[in-house]
């Protein structure tokens, strides 16, 4: 399902510990950390909902200053949407027939 990469900016006090905290979940891979406190993360999630949960959790970790997405590949999910197998949430289908009553 969706694969996304991010650049994470870390507090420089103890970046290695922050990285260890990021890797608590097997769906999160850390591919490198530079001297400016920037890390490359890849999330390989089971669903878009899971991707969102993981990204939210990472952003909330102590010492994480920002988590910026740069790449998203959702080809599996989009193929399922196209085939009708998967329907996005918050999709209601067109049914506008009447103007909404005015309050």
């Amino acid at each position: 399902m969706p694969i996304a990469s991010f650049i994470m900016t870390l507090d420089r006090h103890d970046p290695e510990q922050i990285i260890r905290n990021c890797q608590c979940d097997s769906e999160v891979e850390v591919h490198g950390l530079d001297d400016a406190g920037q890390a490359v993360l890849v999330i390989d999630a089971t669903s878009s909902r899971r991707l969102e949960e993981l990204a939210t959790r990472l952003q909330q970790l102590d010492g994480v200053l920002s988590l910026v997405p740069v790449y998203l590949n959702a080809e599996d999910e989009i193929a399922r949407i196209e085939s009708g197998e998967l329907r996005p949430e918050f999709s209601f289908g067109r049914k506008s027939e009447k103007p909404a009553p005015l309050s």
Partner: protein
Amino acid sequence: MSLSRRDFIKRSAALTAASYIGMTLPGATTAQAAEELTWHRGSCRLCGVGCRVQLGVNVKGVAVALRGEPKSRTNFGYLCMKGMMFYRIMAHPDRLTKPLYRESKQQPFREISWDEALDIAARKFAAAKREHGPDSTAYYGSGQCLTEETYLFQKIMRTALQTNNVEGNPRLCMASAVGGYLSSFGADEPIGSYANIEKSSCIFLIGSNMAEAHPVLFRRVMRHKLDNRDRVKIINADPRFSATSRIADLHLQFKPGTDLALLNAIAYTIIDEKLFDQQFLADYATFRQGKAEQVDMTAYWQSLQDYSPEKTAAICGGNIDAEKIRAAARMFATSKGSVSFWCMGINQRKRGVWANNLIHNLHILTGQLCREGADSFSLTGQPNACGGVREGGGLCHILPGHRPVANEKLRNQVEDAWGIPRGRIAPKPGAHTMKMFQQVNSGAIKALWINCTSPAQSLPNVDLYRQGMAREDVFIVTSDIFPTRTTELSNLVLPTAFHFEKSGVYGCSERRSQLTLKAVEPPGDARPETWIATEWCARLADQLQDPVALQAVKPFLGKEMAVAQPQAIWDEYTQQLTKHRDNDLRGATYQVLGQMADGVQWPAPTEAYALTGGTGIKFVKGIDPLASSEAKDDKPYQFYGPGHPDRKLWVWIRPQAGADEEPDSNWPLYLSTGRVIDHWHTTSMTGRIPELMRANPYSFVEINPRDARQYGISPNDMVEIETRRGKVTMPAKVVEGPIVGTVFAYWHDMHEDRMINKVVKDSFDPGSKEPEFKICACRIRRVSGPQALTPFVVS
């Protein structure tokens, strides 16, 4: 998907990210070769920053991936969650795919053919013109339309229908910035570029929650601060402590509506402590009051006597004291380079133009302009408010190329370029947005085309104007990609192609024009607006039996709609209408834009110059080609803008002016509104992206803990917000965000119970005509404890 393919994609994702920060990871060639995607360069769709992206399209022609464009000087490859997700609405099942029509707004829609739809639209607009005159017709567009679309629609309205009733939603968000730039600098749009962020030593953020509204730009600010913790100072002035405030060295929290006093007080300190640039003022500035009466610096200083730091601290309240004002003034004036950024908090005010003037004053007084690291920069909310609407003639008072419609000479230039008789374009400006919808209410406007925007949700005091839009004698066409609150009030709904499903140019906040070419097919019968407008106008000319009307689209008729047609429109606009204007874009041809990763900044009069990227800083000889060609003396800066005959910057005397509606005993609180990071505007798009909708499924009202205690409100309680215009109800977020005495609500939610624009006041700036969304008076009460709510989008 095989395991190996997932591994390749993961590797590619990692390499992409690593390349943006200069990190080396092994294995690049193998992973990139395995992707099997074609990458198409274009712009992001969801704010005014102008981030460049690459859309990944698979062999079936389906968009399945997105990544940032690393060569872009706007975002350097970085994206935000909104930007990364936007392409996913392309295949959304809610997309409009067939023209829909109903004679009466009480009837259900029925699907019709394009032929039938265009005939109906032509017949209705022609009938309105014949029976009620040209000004009974109107066009209301958007800062999300491509420049080619805005340009073509305004050309049709002015040429075929002979009305200047041409407006767009940028009137609601940046008209005060236009007024400010024109009256202070003599020319619209910022002098500098985003590149000043990394060269600045002081960044002044006022009336902007950049962290949520322009997150990629905010990342640049944050990165600059982190890399230069001691050298770079950040000042944030805002009645609300927002995500942006967290990086500030100094947060100035003031009572809503006292921003003009605060800005005057900073100017007072700059003069009082002799921190101004005497030579810059002598060379480049004059002082003005009223309607541009020239005064001297002594008169200006005299006008500031009501704004000593001590007096102003008493006006502003909040955490403001005299020393904070002085500290801000010193940081700003003594830094090697100061950049100001602002957005709706300044523009959406009853005196938004004045507030803009007072920010510009600080830069003129200190000479913090026209050099690296120094600029006075109004951020823009939409991707093409600048390029399309401000530059392309998308407002009722301006023709393409920053030409006031009331100026006969400039009007004649446009008529000549279009090959229509002189006198064809009406000399009187049309109805600005609020007046336009007042005229819809009165029935004076009989036929209205709304393109790519939803005024039935985005106008202030919106229920009042929805009543007019619901009138049976007002024919409304809406062209859009999804159902909205506005399609609900329309007779004819036309399905349009989305971004990357058509070709055209966006011009972002920093005068940068960027091309996005068609990469995927639109769904169903959705079509590009340029094709729709062209075909409509041809039928309109037939209905009107007016060959001049046909002239509006004659050069574009029959052209291939994906690229050739928008390219022909762009060529006409840039080559004929920007020639020798301050936004000269003649060098920014499709061929040049196609070569540039991040487009071209105007002025760019030749292709050779445009291929260098264009003009990063206006008015500077050696950087801006017009500064040399338009030079009148040997000074290094040449302020050649069309608005100031004296070619000077104007320092304005502008007194403090509060909100149009201040709290009183019956309405004791301020109500302010704004944005959250996960959503954009009316949520017609972001509301259909589950990841974004789940993050912020409905509006909240932020209440300061002290106010919450006073009103007996706990977190997540349902709270009624009542103003003189009505009531809405939404959950409470009790947070040390808004200043005591102010509540702050998110404006995106389109649910009837939570649509905050139903209660916002529709007063507007007398100069810019931009409404004061940001401040009105309200009262609140706890309705109940927490309730389960359902996210909502119109479908």
